[in-house]
């Protein structure tokens, strides 16, 4: 390759990196600039005392506390629902699936990954209508339906990362236990999954981000304003992305819009907390396996 072409490619690579970092920096700076003035305890707890709210002794009616709890629980429930199915499916594709069936499975997973989230929300809504009609009249769009719909939405991330990290393991590692007389399942449980744990957690981190930001799915499946903290899986609930969408699309005063920016910072903080916890788990898993005694 001649020098000018090489320099140009290097230049564009640098510029792309700088643009990416600058865009993220600008976005976060803008949010902080707009949102920090509105960040205070009354934004979160309203008129209720923080202790009463945290101990769920009194309901918070004019603060973001129920939405914070709703979002955190929603992300955790969705990810917990998606992990077993996603990891099992990834293992199946990497270890058990016959070569001739793989393209078919990959096609369906790609389709699932490409479905617009509003359609997944619509599916969740249709499911709740179906269950309401045929199973119980007490079932409406609720926390559980939202969690199930979000779990469907993030399944492809977990499946793909599990499959790829298992598939990328060297042949010598894949066959070590097999050559010692391990069954396929023993090989998966004792060698492949422990080796692959940090890869699986990477998929979960992606899934957390996707669950926390999605608004379209939850709008159709159970989120409402002023629902309070969900008391059961069949309750309606509040969530930060919906609050942000609602405030930014129909605010009545500048102060209300500022609250939306405050909510954005809180959502960002929740995501950073969940990412950090996942990353710590990922590092612990990697270290544990590297130096396991």
């Amino acid at each position, binding site marked *: 390759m001649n020098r000018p072409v090489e320099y140009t490619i290097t230049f564009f690579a640098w510029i792309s990196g700088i643009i990416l970092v600058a865009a993220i920096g600008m976005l976060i700076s803008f949010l902080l600039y707009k949102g920090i003035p509105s960040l205070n305890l009354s934004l979160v707890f309203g008129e209720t005392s923080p202790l009463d709210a945290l101990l769920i002794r009194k309901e918070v009616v004019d603060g973001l506390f129920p939405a914070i709890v709703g979002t955190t629980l929603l992300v955790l429930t969705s990810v917990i629902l998606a992990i077993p199915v996603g990891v099992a499916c990834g293992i199946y594709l990497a270890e058990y699936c016959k070569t001739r069936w793989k393209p078919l499975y990959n096609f369906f997973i790609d389709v699932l990954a490409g479905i617009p989230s509003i359609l997944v929300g619509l599916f969740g809504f249709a499911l709740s209508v179906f269950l309401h009609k045929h199973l119980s009249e007490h079932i409406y769009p609720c926390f559980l339906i939202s969690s199930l719909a979000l779990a469907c939405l993030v399944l492809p991330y977990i499946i793909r990362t599990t499959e790829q990290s298992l598939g990328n393991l060297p*042949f010598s590692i894949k066959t070590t236990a097999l*050559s010692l*007389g*391990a*069954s396929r399942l023993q090989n998966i449980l*004792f060698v492949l999954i422990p080796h692959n744990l940090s890869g699986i957690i990477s998929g979960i981190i992606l899934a957390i981000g996707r669950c926390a930001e999605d608004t379209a799915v939850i709008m159709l499946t159970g989120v409402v304003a002023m629902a309070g903290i969900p008391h059961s899986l069949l309750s309606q609930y509040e969530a930060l992305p919906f609050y942000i969408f609602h405030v930014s699309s129909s605010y009545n005063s500048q102060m209300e819009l500022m609250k939306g920016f405050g909510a954005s910072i809180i959502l960002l903080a929740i995501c950073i907390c969940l990412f950090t916890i996942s990353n710590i788990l990922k590092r612990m898993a990697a270290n544990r396996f590297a130096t*396991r*005694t």
Partner: protein
Amino acid sequence: MKKTKIKINGLNFFYQQKAILKKLEGEFEERAITTIMGPSGIGKSTFLMVLNRLYESIPNCRVEGKVELKLDGRYIDIHKLPLTTLRKKVGMVFQIPNPLPMSVFKNVAFPLKLSGIKDGRVIEEKVEKALKNAFLWDEVKDRLNDSALQLSGGQQQRLCIARAMIIEPHVLLLDEPTSSLDMEAALKIGELLEDLKQKCTLIIVSHYMDLTKRISDRVLTLKDGRLEIS
């Protein structure tokens, strides 16, 4: 007179329709070291993988012909044996040492865990015996709880041999076990293999002519997909 441990009749091996091994015939003696030589890419490692059916982990492979293993005095087609049973009888050591990222002790005890042995005392005794048999005990007896990845290349390879030997296989396949080691470590492995000959049948793929000739009872050459006596 030595008895035959493995009989091979008309063995063909195909990878994606391409024949790698063609109408292979041969016999391997019990409690002897047989070395297979031949240029790179000729199918020596593939042949070893056929003997314990490890090739089944690779997609698009196909085997024709018969490989019989002598167990309890009679010859059994390896394709009729349950896979886990076969691999416990026919162990394998790879070219690059592949200890699992866990302690020295757990590495050697790993096959016992797979076999469902839970008695701690039995496990400790067997691990010690296996490490002694692999001439490794004196070097690692104070480091049993250290990660096996911290051992030197030669020690790792002897650890892998100890791990393969702990379940007392009838046959041990070794795929260029000394090629990634320095001369001193390779000589130690050579010594170890001569000693192991008393306990099981060894089939080695190797490039080291000197070492191989010194320790082998028989040297075969794989040429054009066929085994020939050198």
